[in-house]
């Protein structure tokens, strides 16, 4: 929590004024019992009407002052806390934008989403509460004891015994309760998991006719949950009765010993009433403090999760090269992309995802990449725009090591169509313009044409202005995929990467798409990742990956001759005649 305190630096004034005014308000609250005491002792005893009016007016005046202070405090606290949240949120958003794929994989993007939203909200609420109340409760407790001290030194002893005792009880109940509440949360998570499992697995559960057993399991778990909840309830049920008892025992003591002091003329009747009032104020303040501590624990748990994100920094160093023309790179028909003995390891993985891969692709060539899952196909293409860094070897684009480019220079050359067809809220036009902000409608339509998406976009009443809902839920999987292809094409990239991006297309559309890319995008180097032989067989060069190793490179016919893995894949997908007759 304290690490994040730096985010209050622009709100120093507010973070000091807030608590200060809160303390001021507490002062007025502490004076009230004293005023009342003198009203009783002097006003009533002497039947002094003007005095009573004066004191009564004083009470109202203090009330008004208290209200003003309190409002001032709330205002500054709110301003500081919300400013804190806003800046924290912006910094985290920036920080996430600077992370590389390696870190994104490690943390997981869904975790990042909850941290930047609900965790920051939680921390922000915590700051607000702390600024307002953290000083107030202890101040009231200490203040009340001091006020008691001014009334009677001897009776203060009662306070000095009661306050620690109250604090101890509240602390004990919390200390005993928190672990139990954690167990409640765990059980509740389990109940949640069972519910989700039974929804996603409804078909399997019914296929094996296990509904009754599932219900029984669930019954058992909720019964356990309810038992722990009862335990937690039993513990917290102690708090109120115990504190009530302690406070009233203290009051009894005040009355008895106070009586003795009144008898001796040390204190007055009104002062006894004031002491009783202070005792009640202490109780209220301590209970508020306990609630505050619970909220603060929640906020500090959030703060820890927020700090975890900031602790992760990008493992890649951005290069500086903006321009792509290498002095030695003049002939037009040269190697566009070159891999020299490249290996890649994912963080935390024991084995290499890619080992010792070398090949080069000329400008304008189509490169097919085939192999099973986990064979390293996606890893290979992800190295080209430098989403990850190679563990060994070099990846060259236009003859220059990818690590020398700035991200924007390198990624500007590459259009990538990821496996998952992700679209964003907005119109179709806005989505296609992700590739290039200033793409004209003509260029957009051209991209849609090649991506085989023109037809269905035109069929929509609003054409390019058709709104896409979040996640593209109002489109079919195939339509989404074609739009992501168009988005990459609109960028007019030098290198186009299709990472198994046609899986949701039917075979005929897939074939048309490949043909359009071949004929209409001359000059682009295309990487086609696929598990289907039919998709890659026409490529100028096919790379066959198996367990991260490059086990074959060449045309379809060449590979059939010299690459057993490729032959095996072909035979599993095509008939003998088809394999031979290509």
């Amino acid at each position: 929590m304290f690490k994040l305190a730096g985010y209050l630096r622009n709100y120093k004034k507010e973070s000091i004024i807030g608590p200060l005014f809160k303390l001021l308000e507490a002062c007025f609250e502490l004076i009230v019992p004293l005023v009342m005491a003198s009203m009783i002792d002097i006003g009533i005893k002497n039947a002094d009407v003007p005095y009573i009016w004066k004191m009564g007016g004083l009470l109202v005046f203090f009330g008004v002052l208290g209200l003003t202070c309190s409002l001032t405090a709330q205002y500054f606290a709110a301003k500081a806390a919300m400013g804190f949240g806003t800046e924290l949120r912006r910094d985290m958003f920036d920080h996430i934008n600077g992370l590389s794929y390696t870190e994104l994989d490690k943390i997981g993007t869904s975790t990042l989403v909850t941290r930047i939203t609900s965790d920051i909200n939680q921390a922000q609420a915590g700051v607000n509460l702390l600024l307002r109340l953290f000083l107030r409760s202890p101040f009231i407790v200490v203040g009340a004891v001091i006020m008691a001290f001014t009334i009677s030194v001897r009776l203060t002893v009662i306070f000095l015994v009661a306050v620690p005792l109250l604090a101890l009880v509240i602390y004990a109940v919390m200390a005993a309760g928190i672990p139990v509440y954690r167990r409640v949360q765990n059980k509740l998570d389990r109940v949640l998991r069972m519910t989700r499992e039974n929804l996603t697995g409804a078909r399997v559960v019914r296929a094996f006719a296990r509904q009754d057993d599932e219900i029984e399991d669930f019954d058992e778990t909720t019964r356990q949950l309810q038992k722990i909840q009862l335990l937690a309830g039993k513990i917290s049920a102690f708090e109120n009765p115990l504190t009530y008892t302690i406070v009233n025992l203290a009051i009894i003591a005040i009355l008895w010993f106070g009586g003795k002091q009144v008898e001796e003329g040390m204190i007055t009747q009104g002062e006894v009433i004031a002491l009783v009032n202070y005792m009640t104020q202490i109780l209220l303040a301590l209970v508020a403090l306990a609630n505050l501590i619970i909220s603060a624990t929640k906020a500090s748990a959030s703060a820890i999760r927020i700090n975890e994100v900031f602790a992760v920094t990008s493992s890649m160093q951005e290069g500086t090269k903006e321009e792509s023309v290498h002095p030695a790179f003049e002939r037009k028909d040269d190697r566009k992309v070159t891999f020299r003995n490249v290996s890649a390891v994912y963080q935390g993985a024991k084995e290499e995802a890619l080992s010792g891969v070398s090949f080069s692709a000329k400008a304008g060539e189509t490169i097919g990449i085939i192999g099973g899952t986990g064979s390293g196909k996606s890893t290979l293409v992800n190295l080209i725009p430098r989403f990850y860094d190679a563990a060994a070897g070099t990846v060259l684009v236009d003859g220059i090591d990818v690590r020398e480019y700035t991200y924007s220079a390198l990624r500007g050359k590459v259009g990538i169509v990821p496996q998952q067809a992700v679209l964003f809220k907005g119109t179709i036009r806005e989505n296609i313009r992700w590739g290039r902000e200033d793409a004209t409608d003509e260029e957009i339509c051209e991209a849609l044409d090649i991506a085989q998406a023109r037809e269905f976009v035109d069929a929509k009443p609003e054409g390019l202005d058709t709104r896409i809902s979040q996640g593209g839920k109002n489109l079919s999987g195939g339509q989404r995929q074609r739009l992501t292809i168009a988005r990459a094409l609109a960028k007019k990239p030098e290198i186009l990467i299709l990472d198994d991006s046609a899986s949701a297309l039917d075979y005929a559309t897939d074939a048309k798409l490949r043909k359009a890319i071949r004929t209409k995008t001359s000059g682009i180097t295309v990487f086609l990742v696929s598990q289907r032989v039919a998709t890659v067989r026409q490529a100028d060069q096919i790379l066959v990956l198996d367990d991260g190793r490059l086990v074959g490179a060449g045309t379809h016919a060449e590979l059939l001759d010299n690459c057993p893995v490729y032959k095996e894949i072909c035979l599993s997908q095509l008939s003998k005649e088809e394999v031979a007759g290509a």
Partner: protein
Amino acid sequence: MTNKNKAKNSKIKNSIIKNSRSNSKDTIRRILQHIRPYRFQLVLSLVFAVISVALTLYAPILIGNVVDLIAGPGQVRFAGIMPILIQILAVVLLTSAAQWLMNLCNNKLTYYVAKDIRTRAFHQLEILPLKYLDSHPYGDTISRVITDVDQLSDGLLMGFNQLFTGVITILGTLGFMLSINITITLAVVLITPVSLFVASFIAKRTYRMFKAQSETRGEITSLVEEMVGNQKVVQAFGYEDRARETFDGINERLRECSTKATFFSSITNPATRFVNGLVYAGVGIIGAFTAMRGLISVGQLSCFLSYANQYTKPFNEISSVVTELQNAFASARRVFDLIDETPQEPDAPGALTLRQVDGGVELRDVSFSYNPEVKLIENLNLSVKPGQRIAIVGPTGCGKTTMINLLMRFYDVDRGEILISGHPARQITRDSLRRSFGMVLQETWLKTGTVHDNIAYGRPQASREEVIRAARSAHAHSFIKRMPEGYDTVITEDGGNLSQGQKQLLCIARVMLCLPPMLILDEATSSIDTRTEIKIQQAFAQMMEGRTSFIVAHRLSTIREADVILVMKDGRILETGTHEELIARKGFYAQLYESQFAN
């Protein structure tokens, strides 16, 4: 529209209006029904509430009496004080005990009711037709079972703990005050509503600000979900700066409206405290004058002062309890809505339990559609002899799962009938019908639990040897052996610690253990490496030996070896026949075959 229909429609409309009116009453009635088994606790809780409130209110009077006995030097009557102090002690101890017991009763009441309702809701999930589950987002259903029940139990607990005591406190205080002095009581009664008025005034104003805040929060969350959730795409397209711009704009607006909402909502507390202070001052002034005239004693004044302090508290509490209860009732409504969903039609009376199944399946004039406006399957006839293989073929999204849904009776046919071993499917118990099929779907579902438990899902009583045998024939044994705890390794949710292929093999092993007479298999299209895929193929082949099998097929070899091919498109069955017949027909299948395999 015919008149008859119109009449029907207006009837429906009327009943909807009536429903919404009686909704909250109905909800409360149903909650009370769930409380009924615990009415003993409820009565006890009420009794303890009355005791504890009455005693809490009695204590200040006793304290006041003591104060009167210590008027000044030389006037303290210790002999009178002692018995009252003992009384106070007794009252305090009794109050504490009553409070504690009331809390216990309320906890028990709440958590038992919540458990009952939650269990009932879960039970409903298992008997709802798949149509419901498929057409409602899981998140929504889950939040009914989890969050809504929680909200309900929080609301009930708060209600039981504070509503009764609050009301009793207000009434009790009034009574006690009246018994001491009417003028001062009037002052208290007249000033207190100001606090309520202020609170509701602020609440109305802040409602709009909170709404603005939650809308802006929603905006930022959905932006973050898109941009951070798809961070990889954002980086691939160098969209970071543009995203940041949008983010900053919303973030700034969020700062403004949350500062407002937070500030204005936090006014309530000081404002009510201020009114409280006014009450206190009022009681002080009037009380002082009254005491001066000797109408009340100083002790009674101190008693009044402590009443003034606690009188406004229940008002504030009650208003927050009421909002909490409203939320709780809204949640309860959502849970009850789920519970009230029509469950699937129960098995026909005297339905047959399938034991001997030869594997013959016949579809007679079957018609089916998910949505009456979009016709899917019309008058489909199909006769499958025992042991035959049926391949279901078509482009992705053509509705191949519809066939699985009908065969497994996840959905019921609209017209016509399906016969299994000569028995109409509707005359067979669902459980026994489903148990005679072995199903392996592409979406591999595994339960959180050990590998053993997952394989034995269809036959929980199976021995370890049987489980290992099934795993071996599914080619899963070798990788299971390599897992840290072997067959006792716990699979985390969604099988996170397994590869897609391994999950598939476990699902096959799960069916292998039961080996039912008929199979439904969904061939994997992707995400499995070549070697595992060959293993899965072998496992499939072994299973299909001598069994009637329906295969959602992607591989040409599977399709060619099938006895019957069902060609589907857009949810409809276009053609049926063998490979040669269909090629000869030169229809959709031939076209598909050309584009997919012949290039």
